[in-house]
């Protein structure tokens, strides 16, 4: 996967800036890539040249006592995890995708998150500072290396989740957490009808603790992960804390149903089975309406072989996935992203020819236009990635 992105690989921020400056002069669009593992998103970028941050690897400051870590953008999540685990810490971000390939830069650029967002939030909440080469060929920094910071306008938040459309992230500082002393993963059968899922959401909200993660799995997914059967949905819960707290949490989970142990590696399996999805999109409403979104997702995916969904009731989000083997025809895929839906539908991955159907673009408002123009006036950084107009 990396062979196609080496032509413009940069080893330092300064080199990367030179690549951007050349592109500005030549009026040539750049497609920014990390390890390339999210390229399957097929987002409509009008750029022939790859700009890889894959060469920018390695850790900067890591003082475990500060619970902060600075890393070059091309550092993989696995590389970060192995260093922090040795200190009993972790970066509590688990975006869906292969952790051995996913880079921290891409995670933050796309604001990608996974099941741990249930407790720890998203990259918005974990990113303390970053360095960016803008579309003007300038090196800017937002935030810093401390956990609390209101100095100046918040460039860090603006850039987090901007999909490389304002510039290429070259370095980030993130907040770490202590690894829980004890962790358990449990699976609980849940009925597939709306009242059962409504009751699940209400019970989760009433728990006296917030699990580390809680994902409701489609029967096909639960079965594939070997944590449930095809006759039920399965709630996969991850809990943690000191031994006494975990013991109490196990008892409190009985309010949902009978819990059986599941292996902790199921979370990695859930993440790494994502590679190469044809279509992935998320449906969201208020958490209290999660059951409706789940029902809508089940209906949309009904009849598509191997398609599945999973969701976080506390966040009110259901994520639908159609894997490459699903043999869904174009009209079925089109229906998934265009059929009426009363909540918010966010598309992650689509075949390239369907992206034009995703409208209106999230960047089609006056402020977003202005921001793009201010940071990338020549439209060299991932042009068109947010579906923004010329």
């Amino acid at each position, binding site marked *: 996967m990396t062979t196609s992105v080496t032509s413009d690989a940069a080893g330092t921020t300064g080199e990367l800036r030179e690549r951007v400056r050349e592109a500005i002069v030549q009026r040539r669009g750049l497609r920014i890539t990390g390890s390339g593992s999210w390229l399957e998103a097929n987002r409509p970028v009008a750029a022939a040249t790859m700009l890889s941050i894959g060469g920018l690897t390695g850790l900067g400051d890591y003082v475990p006592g500060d619970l902060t870590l600075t890393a070059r953008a091309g550092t993989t999540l696995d590389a970060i995890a192995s260093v922090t685990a040795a200190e009993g810490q972790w970066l509590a971000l688990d975006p869906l995708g292969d952790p051995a390939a996913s880079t921290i830069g891409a995670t933050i650029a796309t604001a990608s998150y996974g099941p741990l967002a249930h407790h720890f939030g998203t990259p918005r909440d974990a990113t303390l500072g970053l360095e960016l080469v803008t579309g003007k060929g300038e*090196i800017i920094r937002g935030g810093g290396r401390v956990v609390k910071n209101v*100095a*100046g306008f*918040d460039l860090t938040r603006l850039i987090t989740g901007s999909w490389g459309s304002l510039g290429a992230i070259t370095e980030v500082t993130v907040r770490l957490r202590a690894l829980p002393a004890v962790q358990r993963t449990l699976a609980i059968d849940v009925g597939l009808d709306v009242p059962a899922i409504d009751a699940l959401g209400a019970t989760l909200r009433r728990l006296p603790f917030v699990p580390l993660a809680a994902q409701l799995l489609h029967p096909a997914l639960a079965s594939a992960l070997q944590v449930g059967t095809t006759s039920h949905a399965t709630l996969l819960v991850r809990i943690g804390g000191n031994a006494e707290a975990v013991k109490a949490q196990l008892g409190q989970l009985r309010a949902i149903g009978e819990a059986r142990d599941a292996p902790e590696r199921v979370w990695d399996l859930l993440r790494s089975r994502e590679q190469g999805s044809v279509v992935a999109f998320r449906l969201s409403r208020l958490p209290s309406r999660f059951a409706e979104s789940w029902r809508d997702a089940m209906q949309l995916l009904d009849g598509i072989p191997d398609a599945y969904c999973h969701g976080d009731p506390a966040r009110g989000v259901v994520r639908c996935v159609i894997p490459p083997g699903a043999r869904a025809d174009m009209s079925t895929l089109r229906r998934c992203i265009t059929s009426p839906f009363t909540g918010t539908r966010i598309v992650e991955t689509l075949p390239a020819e369907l992206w034009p159907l995703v409208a209106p673009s999230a*960047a089609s408002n006056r402020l977003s236009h202005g921001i793009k123009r201010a940071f990338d006036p020549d439209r060299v950084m991932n042009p068109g990635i947010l579906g923004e107009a010329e």
Partner: protein
Amino acid sequence: MTAAVTANERRPHAPMDAVLAARLKEIVGPRRVLFNPGELLAYGSDGLPGYFKQPSMAVFPGTRDEVAGVVRELARSGVPFVPRGAGTGLSGGALADGVVLLGLNRLSRIIAIDPENALAVVEPGVVNVALSRAVSPYGLHYAPDPSSQAACTIGGNVAENAGGPHCLKYGVTLNHVVALTVVLPDGDIVALGNAAGESEGYDLVGAFVGSEGCFGVALDVTVRLARNPEAVRTLLADFGSIDDAARAVSAIVASGILPAALEMMDQATIRAVEASIYAAGYPTDAAAVLLVELDGPAAGLDADVATVERLCRESAARTVRIARDEAERAKLWQGRKKAFGAMGRISPHLVVQDAVVPRTKLPEVLAGVHEIATRLRVKVCNVFHAGDGNLHPNIGYDANDPDESARVHQAMREIMQTCIAAGGTITGEHGIGLDKLPYMDAIFSAESLAAMCSLRDVFDPDRRANPGKVVPVHACREWHMAPRARRAAENP
């Protein structure tokens, strides 16, 4: 250097003010526009001592429609303005120097509470603690709790991205705002974020929160509420040296236990509190005390309390006391929350400083602050969010004594330089405002500051909203004449 006149320096002429005042009175009613210098005196300062800036007039709309109407009228007239909530800000962000002050404290309605989804929609003038009170029947509270929470408003909290003791565990204002309706300085009304689902595209909520009134005026704010914890434990540990207390902070942070709050007060602060009506029973012979709060599910909490107690004792704590009941807990907290007020009794003037350092650097930075205070003969009281590394070295002094004032300002500069040298930043929760402008060049490159200017220009191309704040004017030089020229080019 050219002497370009910017919007920041523009003053409206008095006759124009009279016309504008008449128009604004039509929108908000005659009693809600203050125009006479005597009436405006009260609005000449905010929570930052030592500054007085007279607004040209002050206007107090009572509804969201009136706010939008006022902002549109100001846009039509090309007049700069400064939004203001309760005026408790500590960086001079609400000072209006010869421009219009837009008071939002009358917009104090809680528009909706959604207990099931733990959300509330409020107007910007809602007082922070009033929101927590209103949602307490549902077992909820609003987590960010600045010490001024009895007076400060949610709108002001949003502008400053306010923090507070409990932000260590629960996050700052930004982590609790999910959506906003904003009137931009040109009068356009925009919805930012999505309260009822996910958002995509640029994080405009993230950009707006903490923009110190430079990006527009929030008409309503949708905030996430926190569920009240099942159990709370509050500990007071006292130490024979500041260094021991700082080492205890590092040990607690490194242990992985995440306290709801982890606060430090030094001896000068303790004595000021104990001499006031807010006396909390802190030991006055201690060099420093730590106030540690742990909360969450009851099960397992006492194990964490025991760990924190052990870590304090291993760092040479003399005593560790655990509040037995809610009354004792409230008393311990009152001393902390009212510490600034207690210090105010001791000296005629008080500078409240705000900086953040990496938490492992606390011992050396506090030693540095002590050395600076001793050398320059100033009285520093440290009371701060130790768990975040968020320092508040406060200096009481007499502003009428020029020699003492000069030493205080020198001490402040040296303290900020010490924090920056330790890898820290110049403000953790008070904002840049006017006060911290001189330090922006020390932590951001010219290119980063220019990027901030260009971001402001997206929201406010005329630079009329809170002019002259946050980013030093010289950093925006490249852009001085750009906005109008650019628009002229785009709309010939």
